[in-house]
Each structure stands twice: as C-alpha cells, then as structure tokens.
C-alpha cells in the first residue's frame, strides 16, 4: 500500500484566509509565486494537518524560525482553521482533517480525525495511531525525510543527529533507529544508577534512623570497653562466659560455705539474672560453715576475759601472798605478833602499874604533905606517928622526885610501852590485812578459775589445769575464727566480684539489647518490604541488563542491515547528487555506517573514502541535502507506503546550472514519489514547465491581499 497525496483543502491557515482546494494528484505540483504570497503557508498547511502542534514553535518543530509561529490569520475572527488532506491508496481515499476553533474550552477547540475508506472515523489519539499504522511517519521523520524547508535547508546533512537519522531512514533503517532511540530512552545505565541512588538514600535514612540507638549503643560499647573488653569480645559468647563465671564462683563459695543451693543453667539468661540478685543475701545469711563463727567469737571473748581475769587474780594473789610472806618473814607470823602484842600489853600494864604506883605514892605524898601542912607537926608522920626530921622536906623532895623524874620516866615508859603495843597491834593488823588480802585474792582467783572452767565447758572437767586448757582453747578457737574469717572474707571477695560481674552482665545485656534494637531498626533484611524491594531491584537490574543486551543486538542487526542496504541506496544517492550537480564525477558520495559507543552512526563519504561535508560549498551542501532527501524518499515510497516530498524554495544557493540539475532530479524522483514544491518564478520553475516530461500541475498564486490573504491566480496542468 502506498499513500499518495491527492488534494489539500485549506481554510483560515496562516497566509490563507479563505478556503482553497488544491489538487495534488500530479507527480509534481508546483506552487509558483513570489515571496510572501503563500507558498510556504500551503506546504505548512499539509504539515499542520498531519501533525498539529508538533509543527509549531521552535522546540516542538525542530525548526528554529518557527519560534512564535501562529497558524491563524490575524483577521480570522471566529472562523475556524481547518485543513483537510486527502490521500489515495489505489482507488481508496483517506481524509485527514484537523480543525481549530478560536473560542470555547481549550480542550474542545481542536479536532483531528481520519476518515477511512470504509467510512469509519478515527479521532484524536486514535486518529494519530491510525496514521502511523497506515505508514504516515511521525513529525521528526517527516521533517527530515520528506521535507525541505528553506529555514533548515542544510541542517539534515550538517546536524549530525539529523544526518545520522536521515541517512538511517534513507537506508530504510529508521525503525531500527527508532528502536535504538526507544531503548536509549529507557536509559538502562541510568536505571542502574537510579537504583544505586535509591540504595544510597535508603542507607542514609537507615543511618539517621539508627542515629540515636546507634549513639546509645556506642555509649554502651564504651562502657564495656572501659571495663577491659574489646570490641571483638562483644558477642553472646562473652555474656555466656560471664554467666558461667558467676555460677562457677558461686558454686565454689557454696561448697566452701557448706551451702546447698540450686544454681541456674548458664544458658537461661533470666534465671541467671534473677538468681544473681538473690545470691549475695543467700551467701551471707545461711552459710552453715560460718554459723559457728559468732558463738566462737563469743566463746573466745568469754575465755579471753575469763583467762585474763584469772591471770589477773592469780597475779594479785601472788602479789598479796608474796607480801604476806615477806611480812611474816620480816615481822613474824600472827602468833609471834600476837605474842609481841601480849608482851607489849604486859609491858604497858607493868608501866601503867608502875606509874599508878608512883602516882599513888605521889598522891600519898601529897596527902602527907597536905596533912603535914595541915598538921601542926610537920615532922610527925601521920601514918606511923613517928618523928622524922625533915619529913616535910623529905616528902617534898620525894614528891618532887616522883613528879619530875620517876613519874615522868614511868610515863615515858608507859608511852613507850603503849607505842610498842600500838606497833604490835599495827603489825598484827597489817598481817591480818595481808592475810585478808591473800584470802580475797584467793577468792577472786577461785572465782576466775571457775569462770574459766565455765567458759571451757565440758572440756574443763577433764582438764587438770583449766587455765592452760583455756589458753589452748583460746588458741584453737582463734585459729578456727581466723579460718572462718578468711572464709567469710573469701565469700565477701567473691560476692564483690559477683557484684562486679552482675553489673558487667547487666551492661552487657543492655548492650545486646541495644544492639538488637539497632539491628532491628536497621535490619531491613527481616522486613517483608525489603525482600519485595530486593526482588524489584533484581527485576529492574534484569530489565536493564536485557535492555543493554537488546541494544547491542539491535546495533549489530542495524549495522548488518545497513551494510546490506548501502549499495542500493548509495547508487540512488549518487545518482541524485550527480543530477543536481550536473556532474557525473560527483556521484561517488556514499553513506557509510559504523558503530560508535554502541550506536550505529552514518557518515557521508566521497570517492576518496573521506568525509565529504567539509569539502562542499553552500550550493553543494544544498545539493547533497536534496540528494539525500530524494534518495530516502524514493526508498520510503518503494518500501514504506508513504510517497510525498515537500520542497519549500529548494533552489537557495543553487546557481542556474544546479537549478537545472534539480529539475532533472525531480523528474527522476517523481516517478516513484510525488513532489509538492513551492518556488519563485525563474529558471527553475521554467525548467519544470518546459523540460520535465512527467505530468505536472502549476498553481500560480496571486499577490497577497491584506483581507483575502493568499489566492490562486492560475492553475495549469502540463
């Protein structure tokens, strides 16, 4: 099936204000007019009909000069813009209509429809799909493979991307190029890069989410390291080792203390933790081995006190006894002292009697004296009544002697005897008191020894020397207390180590909890969503890999097909170039394909195998651009079913000779592909009129009118 353009109806489009119908059923249709009369508007109308907004504006159209393009004439008012292109496929007719209304909702202003030969209508997107199915190329392909725009005359050969696409189209490989572009558009490498970005962002998010728990974990780790652990020690095995140590230590202590305890299994974390809390109290409170300790201390204290007291009492007795013996040795025993006292008492009696006698004599003398003094006869003795010469004096003298010497002496003797009595009494008392002291000391000693015996208990019954036995007992008890104290200290040390290990274990378990929590928070592996994401990533990676593989295969296939097609296309290209240039020697231009960075690229080479573009002047570039266009249009019309070439003022930069050549080339082209061309009157248009033998239509446009716009002045078919 080959679609050929047969008519174009234009209404209110750019230069065309009013409606016009142009028949385009000749191999060549030439719109002849001076500049500004509507030639380009006519060609543009067909483009707009087929492609709509794609042909407007610089970006969408790919034609720089269409920046700010307007399709509606300024004076169109409310009249809609409508262009209808009718294509023929044999006898069948396909009408393509595009309309734009100036008013109403923007979404409802446009209308695009394709009416098929069977009368069915396709609209909008469905219409566009239908056109592709019918073989009408898309705008980009149409622009470079079916059009020659004066604004972009040489671009198809100078712009590398346009050139490569055009040459590929010329070789009939535009679908390969499109496939390649489609594959490139999927950007498999970017897909992989996007996945890596996603994973980096996810990791960053995980790191931030894990931030606080990670800091707590770091703190917990630091605390454990400060206790002497290394980072490599931080695992469950170390915690278990601590539990084992706790239990083994407790077992050792329990054995030594005689405790029967149920120790937990080191693999039961909770049981170990609960037991570890209770263990110190159990170990301190109920140790049978240490139970005697207090009673031993009490016994020891009692024994010590008793033996000390006994020793003191014994010493006291010894001292007092020694003093008594010394006193006896020095002063005689009690009998001797009593005897001395008795003698002293007798001496006192004798002295006293003597004194009493002396005192009585003195008293008698005094009586005698008094009596003598009273008597008239002082010398007569009142007693014996004898006369004694000097009796008074003698009495006085005797009395004086008694008073002054004898009585005094007797008094002195009595005092001395009394002193002796006192001394004897004192000595006796002293002896008595010493004896009492000894007895008291003996009493104390007996009491102390009884206390010792009591403290000894049953052992005292068989002890000859309870005090010695007590001392020995003190020794053994002290040793036993020392041993038990050491055991208690060992227990206390073990409990201190136990407390340290309990804190360590608690910190370790806290560390593991934090680690597990951190792991859970960052352990995406355990999340079902992560497995889903991984599967999606794997599939995406597989897709990207497949795309890369398909790209490589597509490039290889394209290259092979390029090589297969090149010879035929190059003949066509060379022929057209030679025709336009009117120089057979210029027919050596050819297309060469090669793979560059995984893509198939096309170059234009001359006879010498070198790139030809740098050698060409403007005219030759135009000519080459046209030759490329004609070659691929010919190929497409043969193989793709769409036969149409639009040429808008193609004679730019072509001298008259080349214009003649162009006319010859068009004559050759139009036999396979109809041509719609806009030209100014001149050598070229005349050449078409006079020297081209195919059927051709010439539509001459009248001068452009401000109100009416473009119009047809004359239409001639030759």
């Amino acid at each position, binding site marked *: 099936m080959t679609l050929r353009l047969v008519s174009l109806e234009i209404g209110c489009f750019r230069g065309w204000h009013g409606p016009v119908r142009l028949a385009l059923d000749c191999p060549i249709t030439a719109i002849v007019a001076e500049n500004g009369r509507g030639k380009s508007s006519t060609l543009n109308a067909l483009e707009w009909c087929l492609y709509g907004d794609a042909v407007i504006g610089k970006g969408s159209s790919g034609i720089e000069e269409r920046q700010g393009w307007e399709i509606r004439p300024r004076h169109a008012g409310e009249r809609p813009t409508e262009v209808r292109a009718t294509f023929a496929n044999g006898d069948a007719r396909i009408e393509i209509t595009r309309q734009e209304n100036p008013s109403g909702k923007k979404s409802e202003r446009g209308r695009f429809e394709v009416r098929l030969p069977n009368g069915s209508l396709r609209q909008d997107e469905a219409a566009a799909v239908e056109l592709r199915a019918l073989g009408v190329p898309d705008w980009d392909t149409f622009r470079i493979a079916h059009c020659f725009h004066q604004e972009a005359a040489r671009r198809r050969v100078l712009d590398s991307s346009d050139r490569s696409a055009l040459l590929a189209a010329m070789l009939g490989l535009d679908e390969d190029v499109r496939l390649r572009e489609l594959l490139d558009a999927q950007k498999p490498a970017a897909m*992989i*890069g996007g*996945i*890596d970005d996603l*994973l*980096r962002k*996810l*990791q960053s998010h*995980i*790191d931030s989410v*894990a931030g606080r728990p990670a800091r707590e974990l770091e703190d917990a780790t630091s605390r454990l390291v400060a206790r002497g652990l*290394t*980072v*490599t020690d931080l*695992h469950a095995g170390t915690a278990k080792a601590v539990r084992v140590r706790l239990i083994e230590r407790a077992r050792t202590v329990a054995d030594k203390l005689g405790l029967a305890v149920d120790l937990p299994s080191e693999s039961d974390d909770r049981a170990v933790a609960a037991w570890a809390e209770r263990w110190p109290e159990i170990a301190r409170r109920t140790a049978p081995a240490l139970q005697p300790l207090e009673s031993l201390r009490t016994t020891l204290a009692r024994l010590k006190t008793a033996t000390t007291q006994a020793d003191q009492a014994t010493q006291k007795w010894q001292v007092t006894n020694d003093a008594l013996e010394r006193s006896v040795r020095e002063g005689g025993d009690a009998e001797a002292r009593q005897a001395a006292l008795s003698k002293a008492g007798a001496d006192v009696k004798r002295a006293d009697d003597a004194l009493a006698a002396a005192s009585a004599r003195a008293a008698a003398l005094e009586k005698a004296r008094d009596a003598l003094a009273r008597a008239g006869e002082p010398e007569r003795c009142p007693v014996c009544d004898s006369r004694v010469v000097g009796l008074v004096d003698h009495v006085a003298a005797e009395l004086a002697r008694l008073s002054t010497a004898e009585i005094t002496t007797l008094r002195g003797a009595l005092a001395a005897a009394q002193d002796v009595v006192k001394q004897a009494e004192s000595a006796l008392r002293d002896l008595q008191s010493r004896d009492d002291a000894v007895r008291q000391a003996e009493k104390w000693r007996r009491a102390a020894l009884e206390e010792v015996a009591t403290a000894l208990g049953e052992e005292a019954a068989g002890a000859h020397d309870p005090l010695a036995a007590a001392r020995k007992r003190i020794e053994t008890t002290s040793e036993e207390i020392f041993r038990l104290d050491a055991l208690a200290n060992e227990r206390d040390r073990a409990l201190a180590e136990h407390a340290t290990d309990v804190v360590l274990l608690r910190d370790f378990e806290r560390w593991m909890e934090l*680690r597990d929590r*951190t*792991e859970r928070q*960052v*352990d*995406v*592996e355990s999340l079902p969503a992560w497995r889903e994401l991984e599967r999606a*990533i*794997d599939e995406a*990676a*597989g897709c*990207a*890999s*497949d795309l890369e*593989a398909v790209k490589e295969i597509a490039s290889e296939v394209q290259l092979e097909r390029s090589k297969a097609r090149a010879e035929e296309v190059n003949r066509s290209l060379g022929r057209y170039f030679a025709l336009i240039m009117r120089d057979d020697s210029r027919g050596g231009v050819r297309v060469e394909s090669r793979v560059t960075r995984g893509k198939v690229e096309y170059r234009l080479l001359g006879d010498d195998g070198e790139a030809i573009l740098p050698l060409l002047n403007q005219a030759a570039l135009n000519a080459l651009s046209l030759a490329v266009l004609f070659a691929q249009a010919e190929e497409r019309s043969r193989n793709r079913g769409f036969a149409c070439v639009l040429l808008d003022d193609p004679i730019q930069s072509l001298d008259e000779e080349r214009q003649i050549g162009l006319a010859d080339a068009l004559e050759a082209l139009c036999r396979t592909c109809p041509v719609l061309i806009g030209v100014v009157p001149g050598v070229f248009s005349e050449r078409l009129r006079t020297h081209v033998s195919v059927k051709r239509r010439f539509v001459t446009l009248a001068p452009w009118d401000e109100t009416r716009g473009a119009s047809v002045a004359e239409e001639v078919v030759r």
Partner: protein
Amino acid sequence: MKRDVRSRLEEISRAKGQEFGKIVQKLLAIAFLEAGASRLIERSTQGIDLEIDLADGRRLALEVKTSQSEKVSFGAKDIKGLCERRREGRAPYLALLGPRGLDDWIFARFVDGEILPAKDYALTALRAYRDTDLEDSVRETFAAAVIAHTTAAIEGGQGALDAVLRKHSRFATA
C-alpha cells in the same frame, strides 16, 4: 547484611588492608562448610577461588570478589577459568560483596559472553544474575563465621582462618 556483621568486616578491612579479599574468601569457605558442603577446595594461587560440592549434589565454581566501590571488573583469567569449570560440569558463579551497608553477597550466575574481561560492571547490574536460594543457604553461616572469627582474622590473618578451615575434614587446598 546485619549491621554487626558489616561493622566487623569493616574492622577487618581497616586492620588487614590488601589481605581483606582473601580473608573474606576464607570466611565464605567456612560458611559453606558450616552450611553442609560435602567438599570444598580452595585454590590460593591460580584458577577459580573456590570449588564447592553441595550436599544436594550440585557442583559449583566460585570466583570471589570484594569491591570497595559500587563497581567490579574481572580479569581474562577469571573469565577463562569459569568457562573451563563449566566445561568440567561445575556451575560457575561470581561471588560478589560490595562495601555499602545494604550490600550482601551476590552470587551471580556466570554466563559466557555476557560478562567481558576488563569491563566495569555495576554490582547492581549483576543482580540480574542472582541465585538467591544459594545466597540464602549461607547467609546465616557467613554471619556466624564473621562473628566467631573476627579476632582471629585481625590478629592472625589468613593463617588463622586456614587453621579453622583445616579442622574441617571436607576442606582441601590446591
């Protein structure tokens, strides 16, 4: 990969530098043995790194690579070795471990012609060839091997891990 395992690998890498790749290879070998491989041969000089006979009868050839970036490349000898192992009836694999926290082992089936020598491949791209069942079979044992042997790896290097491997009756070197 669990954070704890990843941080231990990072510690080993910091401590052992260039030796890290070989150490990881030996840890992987330990993991396969602990997972029940019936035979494992480690080639330390030339040829494919690990030849493994699994308990289910499958025979594998693994080329082990640890990457410090998101890309990895393979030498011509590696490619050739894998092709030879395939001819001998072993399923050839690329065992790949990347540096990122979310990276875990990728056991990529080697397909001749699709992996070219001296070309950089994104680790992510090679996920297209993953054998996730094989990866799952050693995930836990690899983590356990890293945790159990971190200290030995840091203090004793490859030699210490060789001593661990020699204790397995199903291990041999070539």
